[in-house]
Structure formats: structure tokens, C-alpha cells
């Protein structure tokens, strides 16, 4: 980046709304960049996105193309990650599997974050019976172990990736509601909230424009830290045959089908396992870095 750009971004007296916002973002980026592990995490997550987008260009074979002459081949020049029991190229399947993983991640984010934030901030701000009802509902969801509840949901609906996502989302939002409520309880007594109350703002306006922005950073951090767990739950459902269905190249389902050969043909289960491990690690490192940058107590 050349000097005049960074000067514009770090200007102490920005001249426009956009410049102020870009400057605040750039400062966070500078703080984030100082953390090498977080940069590794970011690199992993960005490569996951790129691999998912360009999967057809990266993968040498189709994800479901069988070649029965090359069954269970060890990693080689032809099959980088080896091949599975139907002669499918594991590298190609892992590459295409990133799309499924990314889809799960995105769908869970867009459902869980708004629900958790809405329930938590409304309960925290309005208190009283609103709080009591919303938090008891949250408690009901929290009372079940996450995987068990997800299993029950999927079993009741029908196995498949969409229902797996739905089940994960339904079991993931309660901690976000709790978190947002706790933050709201801290913030609602602050003078700057009293100040907007004394300006005549409605309750909804205060929650949406003044309280939610204070809760968003902790939600983002928690989300990235949770992402590893979400990917593992999705893989777990796939492993149990309740998530993505064959022949879809979902990583958990791939491990499941590879476990029969795990002693003799280790790569069938190990390669998707490594993919899950790397992506989970990436999200965790990213989350750690974001926590350092976004922590409201930093300033």
C-alpha cells in the first residue's frame, strides 16, 4: 500500500463517513496483522473460500468419477491423496467437499447470529417477562447436549445436508443469546444508552442501533471460535450417516466410509480428517486474533 493511501486511512480528522469507517477498519487490520498466528488462521480460511470457489479448476477429477481399476491406490503422482474404494480421487473429493463445509458454515452463520443477537439483546434490554420467556426457551435448548439434539432433529426430519444445517443452527444459537444478553445487561445501564433514551428514541431503535453494535464483535469472535465445533458436528452427522448422503464428498461421510480400511489404506480416512483439522484450526486461530482486535475493553 502506498504512503498516501495509508495516510488517508489514518487521518485523524476524516472528511467523510466512508473515510472514518475505512480508517477504523484499517486500524483494526493493522492490529490484527501484528499477530502471526491469526494471519495463519486468516490464510487458511481465505484458502478454504478460494478452493471452494475454484474447485472445478483445482480438482483433477470429478468428485464422483469412479475408476475401478485404481481402487484404494496410495498417494501418488496420479492421485495426490490416494483413491478410495470406488477408485475416486480423494484429493478431488476433498476439494469439492470444501464447498459443502463452506456452505454449512455460511448457513449456520446467517441463521445463528441474527437469532442469537435478537433473542439476547431483546431479553437483556427489556427485562421482565420478555427476559423470562426468552431465557427459559433458551434454557430448554441448552438443556440437551448439542449433538444429541441435532441427531434427534435430523432423525425426525430426514437425513440430508439441509436438515443437518438446520439441526446445527437450532442447537447452536442459545449460547449466542446468553452472550448477547450478558453484554446487553452491561451496556444498558451505560450513560450513552441513557443519553439516547433522553433523546426520545424508541426501545427497538436503541436495541438495533446502539446495543447490537456493542454485542456484534463478541458474537463474531464466538462465531469463529465455534466454527471448528460446527464443522466437527457437521462431520459427525455425516459420519453417522445423518448428514450429507453418498456420493456427496462431505468430509465426515468420507471418513466414515474410510474407517473400514483405516489400518491398511489409512489415507482414505486420514485425508478428509486432515482437511477437517486444518480448517477447524484455521477458524480457531482467526477467532483468537479477532478477539484480540475486537475486544471492546481494548480501548
Amino acid at each position, binding site marked *: 500500500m502506498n504512503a498516501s493511501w495509508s495516510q488517508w486511512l489514518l487521518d*485523524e*480528522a*476524516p472528511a*467523510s463517513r466512508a473515510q*472514518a469507517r475505512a480508517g477504523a477498519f484499517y486500524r483494526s487490520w493493522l492490529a490484527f496483522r501484528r499477530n502471526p498466528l491469526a494471519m495463519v488462521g486468516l490464510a487458511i480460511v481465505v484458502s478454504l473460500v478460494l478452493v471452494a470457489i475454484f474447485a472445478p479448476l483445482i480438482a483433477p477429477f470429478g468428485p464422483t468419477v469412479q475408476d475401478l481399476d485404481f481402487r484404494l491406490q496410495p498417494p501418488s503422482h496420479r492421485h495426490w491423496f490416494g483413491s478410495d474404494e470406488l477408485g475416486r480421487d480423494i484429493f478431488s473429493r476433498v476439494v469439492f467437499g470444501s464447498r459443502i463445509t463452506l456452505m454449512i458454515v455460511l448457513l449456520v452463520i446467517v441463521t445463528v447470529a441474527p437469532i442469537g443477537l435478537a433473542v439476547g439483546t431483546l431479553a437483556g434490554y427489556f427485562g421482565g417477562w420478555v427476559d423470562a420467556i426468552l431465557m427459559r426457551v433458551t434454557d430448554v435448548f441448552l438443556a440437551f447436549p448439542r449433538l444429541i439434539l441435532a441427531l434427534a432433529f435430523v432423525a425426525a426430519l430426514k437425513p440430508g445436508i439441509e436438515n443437518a444445517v438446520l439441526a446445527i443452527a437450532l442447537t447452536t444459537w442459545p449460547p449466542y443469546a446468553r452472550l448477547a444478553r450478558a453484554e446487553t445487561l452491561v451496556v444498558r445501564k451505560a450513560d*450513552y444508552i*441513557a*443519553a439516547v433514551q*433522553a433523546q*426520545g428514541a424508541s426501545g427497538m431503535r436503541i436495541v438495533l442501533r446502539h446495543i447490537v453494535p456493542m454485542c456484534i464483535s463478541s458474537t463474531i469472535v464466538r462465531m469463529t471460535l465455534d466454527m471448528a465445533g460446527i464443522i466437527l458436528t457437521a462431520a459427525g452427522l455425516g459420519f453417522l450417516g445423518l448428514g450429507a448422503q453418498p456420493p456427496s464428498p462431505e468430509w465426515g461421510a468420507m471418513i466414515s466410509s474410510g474407517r473400514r480400511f483405516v489400518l491398511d489404506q489409512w489415507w482414505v480416512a486420514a485425508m478428509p480428517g486432515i482437511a477437517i483439522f486444518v480448517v477447524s484450526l484455521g477458524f480457531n486461530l482467526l477467532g483468537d486474533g479477532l478477539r484480540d482486535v475486537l475486544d471492546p475493553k481494548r480501548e
Partner: protein
Amino acid sequence: MILSAKNLTVAFGEMRAVDEAAFTVERGESFGLVGESGSGKSTVLRVLAGLIEDWSGSIAFDGKALGRTRDRAFYSRVQMVFQDPYGSLHPRQTIDSALAEPLAIHKMDRHEQRIEKALEEVGLGSGFRFRYPHQLSGGQRQRVAIARALIVEPEMLLLDEPTSALDVSIQAEVLNLLDALRKAHNLTFVMVSHNLAVVAHMCRRLAVMNRGRIVEEMDRDALRRGEAKDPYTRRLMAASRGYDRKLAESFKTLD
């Protein structure tokens, strides 16, 4: 008379934070509420601003009795400035958004011009407009808070110790700014302070509060001549002249 309170009582559990307070404020005047910490003066102000809903008694604003909750029209006429300028500005919002918010709430027009004008009036240039609160000093933040209160063109400002969190050198600047703005816009002030000198400087009339009660009402000239009748007021005046061990002891025994 723009504001009158009668039998105003606020109880937090057993404790009566405000006990049967009564006072009136004339249009265009500046009225002070003085007392030590915990005397209930800020509570009175918060009741007036509608931030505390649990009170009894009666308050009338411009001839109309006020209820527990205030409508938006009330807030377009009465605005508040808080004590702590570090706490009263949203840490994630630029000055621009802080000033745009009341305009949006009261559905006012010409946001651009109003924001520029409000900053101008409190002595901050437009260079401050897109900064975040953490980039500003305490005095600058309090100017922003004043601009935010004035931007909806209210008739009355409720000032909760507007200078007590600031450096002594900045205090005078902010007080003079408030005084000038009051004259320019013909505002009514209700100002709370523990500082007799500040109130004597700013307010034509004042009420002294102790333990939730208004113990004395007097005007500025009487205060300057030292004509306090109530023993508590006299002690407070003596305390404002400097530290005195005997006097400090007497505060402990006063009940």
C-alpha cells in the same frame, strides 16, 4: 413558569432518594440544584428526563402534567447533558452519527446543515465531525454532548454536573459556552452541581438539597451575600471556601 414539581418523591426500596421536593422554574431562567453526593439532586434531574419512571408526586411542564413515560414531543423540547462525557457518547459511533441520531429520532430535515451548525456553535470545527469519541479530549466530548442536546432545538436543557468531570481550566470554558448558548437560544436551564461556585456563576436561582429534601431556596445575590438561613447551606458554603478539619467533622454529625 415552564416547570413545576410538587411533592416529588422517589424511593429506592426503603431509602427515600428524593423526599417531597417542590420547586418551580421560570421560562428562560437558569435554575440550580446544589447538594453533596447522594443528596438526590441527580435523581430529580433523571426523573425530569424520564429516565426514572418510579416516582410519585406531580410534575408539570409548560402547564401540562407529565406522566411516567414521555412522548417524543417532550424530548424535542427538553434535552439532557450528562455528567461524564467519557460515558455519554457511544464508543462505536462517530461524532457525525451521534449528532445525526437525534435528528433521525425527531424526523428533522437538513441533517447536513444542522450537524455543521451544531458543531460550529459549540466551538468545534467540521474537522471533528467524523472522529470517534476516543480521539477527543474530555472538554471536546462535552461540547459534542452539548451540540447533541441542542441540535433538536429544545427549550430546556437538563444539565447533570456538566463540568465536574473536566479539568478546572476547561470547566470555565464549557460553563461560558453554556451561558452564551442559553442567551443565544433563550433556553431554560436546570443545572445540578455540587459546586456552589459553579452554580453561583451560572444560575439566577438555586435550591439546596440534603438527604433528598430541598432545605432552602435562594437567589444568586443572597448566596453571594452569604445570607443562607439553613444550617446545612451555611456549612456547604463554608466548605466551598476551603478545607477545614472542624467543618469536615461537623458534616459527619449533621443529621
